[in-house]
């Protein structure tokens, strides 16, 4: 026990320890013995008190002591900060090259960390701009039995929760959609949401102008009212203070503005206007869509809230969901929105931390080389009566000055990097995230600065004051091989740099390879020369499905005749669009499901031309044909009474899942529970609907006359560059109806690039950081080798004078350097296999010990190690023995 306390005494200031160490131990032993009689807890408390006591003494030793001059002056303990700083400044200026290099390397490491932290801060740490955001939770329903994580909110269920919950202050449900907003100035497509009337209360916001919705407005067939966002109010209504009460045209109908909400309310996706949800609690299967947010009462935990909603849901299970298919869940709001970014954020943060480590190792090497060169100076100062503490303080001040310069530069560079990054990938940045420099970012920069001081400062400091003074002072001649411990530390630093670089290079190359693999995944359609555009019809001006069908048929036919277009088709849910419309089918002669679950099927409604426009491959039977659609819109009677046979096309996954791998699909039958059997006329290749790296669900295509929609996507196959067709398409649409906007015209290749943009950004960021670490490591190895060669000038001179050949000298120099690197790389590779395992799904099936990547990294690192050591070695070999021996 006493030995432990003796070890802890190292915490105390040196002079105290030297003078009173034994007495302090005795006092501590007495205290401990007394405390032991009253139990382990008391003994532990004594240990804690003793440690804090030692730490306090240490802190007190650092604190400038104001001693009255008349009483006592101790030159050595007086803290002459001003002169210390001046001295440090001069020391740093004396070696401008080394100082600039150190500052730049630190700036690089800190800039990368600041940039990534700003992203992490914006996504994860910044609270949402609502009062008490931690009381907000996300509510939705899941259907575990159907493999659905998120089903959507059924309004009657929500209504029940709202009435029966006990632990919430308020609840809201919303459904984001888009609206055609038109007035004399033209038609615009704006993001909007249908919401329940409590939304201002849940978010804790007050309208800037006017009011929120009343209960009377939030019910079926309520008056048409709308609340607009601050942004829309300023841009569209010129910040008119009398906007409340004005009428606007919304989806072809008139609505009255009743309020303006502040910018913070435009959550989560730049919502510009709100209309009442006007749900009907009486219609039990209205729809499962949208999301809900709740504000918990103070002090309620998420788990309690979750149980509360499940309890409120009980009557629904009892009444119409005895199998408990749909289960509500409650999650922290923030978690729900950042879940997708967590893995990438972790990997990138890890990478920049490693980069900073490499930068620090490099700076440590530079500073250590400097410190070794200054051993004589340090030795002299110690010999002249300066205390070791004083010398250390001197070094500390130098280090802090370096780190501060690096941090300021790094902060600026990091800021520039973030704005560059965000402007490059605007679509992939969640719209609610704000990436600004707040106190947290600055705090982070300060902490990383302090960490760097410790990381790069320890080695030089230790070497500067350890060892005996005499040898340091005696080492008068330049070029003797002094300080073997310092040399060893230098090599360790280089080895560690290469190890860390190896880890980063391996991980980033694996990710780049995975990205390449994702990009070359077969999407199931022909991506080139395809133009897509979504077209929403105003249900106000065209209320009937027949009108929609006529519109779509006309649009498709006329679009096909546009110059440069050779195929056109329409679809409800285009691939990679983030769209999903799930349904359940009854399937004739289906194989029994091992898990007993009926899989969710992606339902799409398409025209015959769609398959040709997209180049979807036919596997069996035929595509949907114009003859399948010729009858026009099918009425409910047509379908349920079987008056019109409905042709369907399924994908390969559907056949595999329901009928088996080689069973074939054409001629088989399936149905909704409310229709007669429908016959499969063809099987097509799987389209990667949810993303290139996501698995595909079974899918069904129904002909467009089965159930035309008011908003659909037009796909064109072009013979010219697809984007060049956009103007003529826009003109065509204007000819048919000037009130209809063309939404997001995009080429399929753009769409694919956008769907992989997050992965691309993530992989390339990691690759850039790995590259930087690699460059730093090369620089470090070169610098250290060069320094050591300079130190060995005299030794090498002697060897050359004694007849050593150029080759021998070079071999001896290169061997020591490369040996260290090989050891470092070997350690790095071993670690990287484990680290790469953490990347998990992001590797998209690329093995963590991919032979190509590992051998490439090894080869590159070892070859560069040869180069980095080769140049100094050549210089060593050219040393003129006469001159080197004369060097003094």
């Amino acid at each position: 026990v006493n030995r432990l306390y003796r070890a802890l005494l190292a915490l105390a200031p040196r002079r105290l320890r030297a003078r009173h160490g034994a007495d302090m131990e005795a006092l501590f032993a007495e205290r401990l013995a007394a405390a032991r009689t009253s139990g382990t807890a008391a003994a532990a408390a004594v240990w804690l008190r003793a440690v804090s006591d030692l730490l306090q003494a240490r802190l007190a030793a650092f604190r400038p002591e104001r001693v009255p001059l008349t009483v006592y002056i101790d030159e050595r303990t007086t803290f002459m900060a001003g002169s210390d700083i001046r001295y440090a400044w001069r020391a740093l200026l004396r070696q401008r090259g080394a100082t600039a290099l150190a500052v730049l390397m630190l700036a690089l490491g800190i800039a990368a960390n600041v940039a990534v932290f700003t992203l992490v801060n914006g996504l994860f740490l910044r609270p949402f701009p609502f009062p008490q955001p931690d009381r907000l939770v996300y509510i939705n329903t899941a259907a575990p039995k159907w493999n659905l994580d998120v089903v959507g909110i059924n309004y009657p269920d929500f209504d029940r929760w709202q009435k029966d919950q006990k632990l919430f202050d308020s609840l809201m449900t919303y459904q984001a959609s888009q609206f055609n907003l038109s007035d004399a100035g033209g038609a615009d497509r704006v993001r909007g949401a249908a919401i329940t009337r409590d939304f201002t209360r849940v978010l804790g916001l007050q309208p800037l102008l006017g009011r929120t919705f009343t209960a009377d407005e939030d019910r079926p067939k309520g008056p048409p009212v709308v609340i607009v966002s601050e942004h829309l109010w300023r841009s569209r209504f010129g910040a008119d203070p009398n906007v409340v009460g004005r009428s606007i045209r919304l989806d072809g109908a008139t609505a009255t503005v009743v309020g303006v909400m502040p910018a913070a309310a435009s959550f989560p996706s730049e919502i510009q206007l709100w209309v009442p949800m006007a749900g009907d609690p009486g219609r039990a299967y209205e729809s499962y869509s949208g999301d809900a947010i709740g504000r918990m009462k103070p002090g309620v935990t998420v788990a309690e809230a979750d149980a509360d909603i499940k309890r409120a849901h009980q009557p629904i299970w009892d009444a119409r969901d005895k199998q408990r298919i749909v289960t509500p869940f409650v999650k922290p709001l923030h978690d729900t929105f950042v879940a997708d970014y967590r893995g990438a954020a972790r990997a990138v943060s890890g990478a920049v931390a490693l980069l900073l480590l490499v930068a620090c190792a490099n700076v440590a090497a530079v500073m250590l080389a400097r410190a070794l060169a200054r051993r004589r100076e340090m030795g002299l100062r110690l010999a002249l009566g300066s205390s070791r503490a004083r010398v250390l303080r001197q070094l500390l001040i130098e280090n802090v000055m370096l780190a501060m310069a690096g941090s300021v530069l790094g902060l600026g560079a990091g800021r520039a990097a973030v704005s560059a990054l965000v402007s490059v990938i605007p679509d992939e940045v969640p719209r609610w995230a704000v990436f600004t420099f707040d106190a947290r970012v600055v705090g982070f920069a300060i902490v990383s600065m302090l960490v760097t001081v410790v990381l790069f400062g320890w080695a030089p400091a230790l070497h500067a004051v350890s060892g005996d003074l005499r040898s340091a002072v005696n080492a008068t001649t330049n070029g003797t091989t002094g300080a073997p411990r310092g040399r060893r530390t230098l090599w360790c630093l280089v080895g560690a740099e290469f190890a860390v670089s190896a880890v980063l290079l391996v991980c980033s190359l694996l990710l780049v390879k995975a990205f390449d693999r994702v990009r070359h995944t077969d999407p199931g359609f022909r991506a080139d020369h395809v133009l897509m555009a979504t077209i929403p019809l105003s249900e106000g001006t065209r209320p009937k499905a027949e009108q929609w069908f006529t519109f779509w048929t006309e649009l498709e036919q006329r679009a096909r005749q546009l110059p440069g277009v050779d195929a056109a088709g329409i679809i409800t849910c285009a691939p990679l669009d983030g769209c999903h419309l799930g349904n359940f089918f009854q399937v004739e002669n289906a194989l029994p499901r091992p898990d007993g679950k009926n899989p969710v099927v992606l339902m799409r409604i398409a025209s015959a031309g769609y398959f040709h426009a997209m180049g979807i491959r036919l596997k069996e039977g035929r595509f949907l044909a114009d003859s399948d659609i010729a009858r026009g819109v099918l009425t409910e009677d047509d379908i349920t009474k079987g008056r019109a046979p409905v042709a369907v096309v399924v994908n390969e996954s559907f056949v595999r899942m329901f009928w088996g791998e080689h069973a074939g699909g054409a001629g088989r039958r399936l149905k909704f529970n409310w229709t007669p059997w429908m016959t499969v006329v063809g099987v097509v290749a799987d389209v990667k609907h949810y993303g290139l790296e996501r698995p595909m669900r079974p899918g069904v295509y129904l002909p467009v006359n089965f159930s035309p929609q008011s908003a659909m996507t037009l796909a064109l196959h072009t013979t010219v560059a697809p984007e060049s067709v956009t103007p003529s398409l826009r003109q065509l649409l204007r000819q048919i109806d000037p009130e209809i906007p063309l939404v997001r015209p995009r080429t399929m290749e753009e769409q694919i690039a956008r769907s992989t943009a997050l992965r691309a950004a993530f992989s390339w960021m990691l690759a850039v950081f790995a590259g930087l670490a690699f460059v730093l490591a090369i620089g470090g190895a070169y610098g250290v080798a060069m320094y050591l060669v300079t130190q060995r000038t005299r030794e090498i001179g002697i060897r050359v004078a004694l007849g050593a050949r150029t080759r021998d000298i070079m071999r001896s120099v290169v061997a020591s350097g490369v040996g260290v690197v090989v050891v470092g790389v070997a350690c790095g590779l071993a670690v990287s296999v484990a680290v790469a395992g953490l990347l998990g799904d992001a590797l998209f099936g690329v093995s963590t010990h991919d032979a190509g990547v590992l051998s490439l990294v090894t080869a590159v690192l070892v070859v560069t190690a040869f180069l980095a050591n080769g140049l100094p070695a050549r210089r060593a070999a050219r040393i003129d023995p006469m001159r080197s021996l004369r060097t003094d």
Partner: protein
Amino acid sequence: MAAGASLKPHWFYILLALADGDRHGLAIARDVQSLSDGGVRLWPATLYGSLDELRGRKWIEELAEHPEEESERKRYYRLTRTGRAVLTDEAERLGRLSRLARSRVRTGEAR
């Protein structure tokens, strides 16, 4: 020591312990604990750090020769004249303070 300025409590107790006679560090620690009814416990670094500092201020001094029958390596300390003056000042200050407090409390009760 200027009137009104207060002395660090543990310094006061150390001086107080030494006012009774010369002592070594461990004895001071025990004394302080009993003087304060166990309320003030001096931990090693605080105690010896304070002793060094008080010595630096010449309020206490280290005895050159050790009293008999004690082990050689223990350092004994004695209150200097300055130290005794500081202690007296502080005791008077505390006395004034407690008189003031008492009179206030009493007038408060009367009202």
